[in-house]
């Protein structure tokens, strides 16, 4: 099913023209209203009028996560505060979160692309949508909420957690659509089994799963255990939140709503654009966003693009499932975690050496984050309770900075492998990336 036939099935030539016009307007707007972009243009000797069509895209400067950090919190805004109606945030590479702002038109745009998204997954006004994405600063909850309401579905804004209650609500209210992270879907399936029931015995038929990478194997496991059609969705707060791309019922790549979010694939090392079909770093330019337009944002996600028409009728470019990261960001229970955040906590803790190892595992189905910290002579105490207090203090500080619980394990000095050059900081035992 298609929500917006006019745009989602637009002939590609027309689409390119529309994208070119919007890109031209964006360059002018960003240059005029965002000092960061004005400086970046000037540094390259670039004038807004140099951007005439889509072909001029490579002339534009990149934007990175650290640009958000350097202009924390709202320095990248293109509108005055009175036009900002909403703020969301995701975790940043260091202690400060990445803050994003929306105008009223942006919230409307977001609702519209989320309406396209849930419609692509087969959701209609007759559905009951159990939205188990977290509500709050995280974009997942409210993004799905607005999109499902726009198509006229009934929304249950249950948010994350309280798994037994989730099962009960699904049974009692007859939910037909489940929105959450893929790992939480598996966890709910196991919770149902523990309660002596099964998600197969509910009316749930479709799951829209995202906010973390997951493999094809995991998709089959979810579909087997729950009986749901498991649809992959992609988004990130810097671009808009969920609603950047989604699979259709054919599950053959995620259609990017590229009339609003212009995709590119670039070589992560050189920044050179790569042709369709080649794997590289996914880059987005927001063509229509008002409050915080973003030019050529380096997502850090590795994938490839495929512009071939899809059996569903959409002409919009499809992106492959995310197959990795260019940086060391890990996604745990839907939350972005950067090793540098953990390093920051350890560096501030007195006497702890910054030798650490992050181990991500999937215990049963929920992600489990463990941080190994080497015990130095300075921090070592003869008493168990002092070392346990240290573990507890580090655990609390990590929770504060990361927003999720991490277990802290004290290990002997030099037990964490040193390597030449870049130290190996993360061992990810989950099977999250396909291929």
């Amino acid at each position, binding site marked *: 099913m298609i929500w917006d036939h006019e745009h989602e099935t637009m002939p590609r030539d027309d689409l390119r023209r529309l994208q070119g016009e919007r890109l031209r307007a964006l360059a002018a707007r960003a240059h005029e209203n965002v000092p960061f972009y004005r400086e970046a243009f000037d540094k390259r000797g670039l004038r807004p009028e140099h951007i005439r069509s889509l072909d001029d895209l490579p002339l534009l400067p990149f934007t990175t996560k650290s640009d958000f950090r350097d202009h924390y919190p709202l320095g990248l805004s293109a509108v005055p505060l009175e036009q900002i109606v909403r703020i969301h945030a995701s975790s940043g590479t260091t202690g400060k979160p990445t803050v994003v702002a929306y105008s009223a038109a942006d919230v409307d745009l977001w609702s519209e692309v989320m309406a396209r998204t849930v419609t692509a997954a087969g959701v209609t006004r007759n559905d009951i949508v159990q939205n188990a994405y977290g509500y709050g600063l995280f974009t997942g909850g409210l993004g799905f909420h607005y999109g499902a309401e726009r198509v006229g579905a009934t929304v249950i804004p249950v948010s994350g957690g309280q798994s037994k209650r989730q099962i009960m609500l699904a049974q009692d209210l007859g939910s037909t659509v489940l929105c959450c992270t893929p790992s939480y879907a598996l966890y709910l399936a196991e919770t149902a089994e523990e309660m002596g029931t099964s998600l197969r015995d509910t009316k749930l038929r479709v799951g829209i799963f995202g906010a973390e990478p997951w493999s094809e194997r995991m998709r089959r496991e979810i579909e087997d255990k729950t009986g749901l059609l498991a649809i992959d969705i992609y988004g990130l707060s810097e671009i808009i939140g969920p609603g950047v791309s989604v699979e259709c019922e054919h599950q053959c790549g995620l259609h990017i709503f590229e009339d609003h979010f212009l995709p590119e694939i670039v070589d992560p090392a050189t920044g050179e654009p790569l042709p369709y079909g080649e794997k590289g770093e996914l880059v987005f330019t927001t063509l229509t966003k008002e409050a915080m337009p973003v030019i050529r944002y380096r997502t850090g996600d590795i994938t490839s693009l495929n512009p071939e028409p899809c059996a569903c009728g959409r002409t919009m470019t499809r992106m492959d499932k995310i197959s990795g990261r260019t940086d060391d960001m890990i996604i745990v229970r839907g939350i972005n975690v950067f090793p540098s955040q953990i390093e920051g906590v350890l560096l501030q803790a007195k006497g702890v050496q910054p030798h650490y190892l992050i181990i991500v595992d999937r215990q049963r189905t929920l992600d489990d984050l463990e941080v190994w910290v080497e015990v130095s*002579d300075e921090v*070592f105490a003869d008493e168990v309770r002092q*070392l346990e207090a240290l573990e507890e203090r580090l655990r609390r500080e990590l929770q504060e900075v990361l927003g999720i619980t991490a277990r802290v*394990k004290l290990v002997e000095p030099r037990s964490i492998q040193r390597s030449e050059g870049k130290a190996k900081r993360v061992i990810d035992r989950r099977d999250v990336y396909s291929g």
Partner: protein
Amino acid sequence: MKATQISVFLENRPGRLLQLLQVLARAEVNLEALSIADTADFGIARVIVSDPVAAMAAIQEAGLTAATTEVLRVELPDEPGALARHVVEPLAKAGVNVEYIYAYSQRVGDRAVVVLKTDDIEKAEQVLG
């Protein structure tokens, strides 16, 4: 009598205690008392040895994390009720808290020996004479 105890941080997995004992053996240091406190993840091995300086040097050379602590070495009659009567009760009356206590591997003559860590070593030494 005060004694120097060496505490060593050990991960709670097979072979870790063995490494410590081998280091001490190679340094030709005799182990006089040993106690291990453990949690799920790690343990602290506490040892009294014949030559604490040589032992500490060897342990640090081996890359283990260690610290020295002043403890009390107390001799007492090897008979029922002695530990309570001669050590714990006097300390309790004096308001000194015992943090941990463990026994020597060898007796001295007909007397038993214990190692004692308290929250106030000076006062404990005074009390126990």
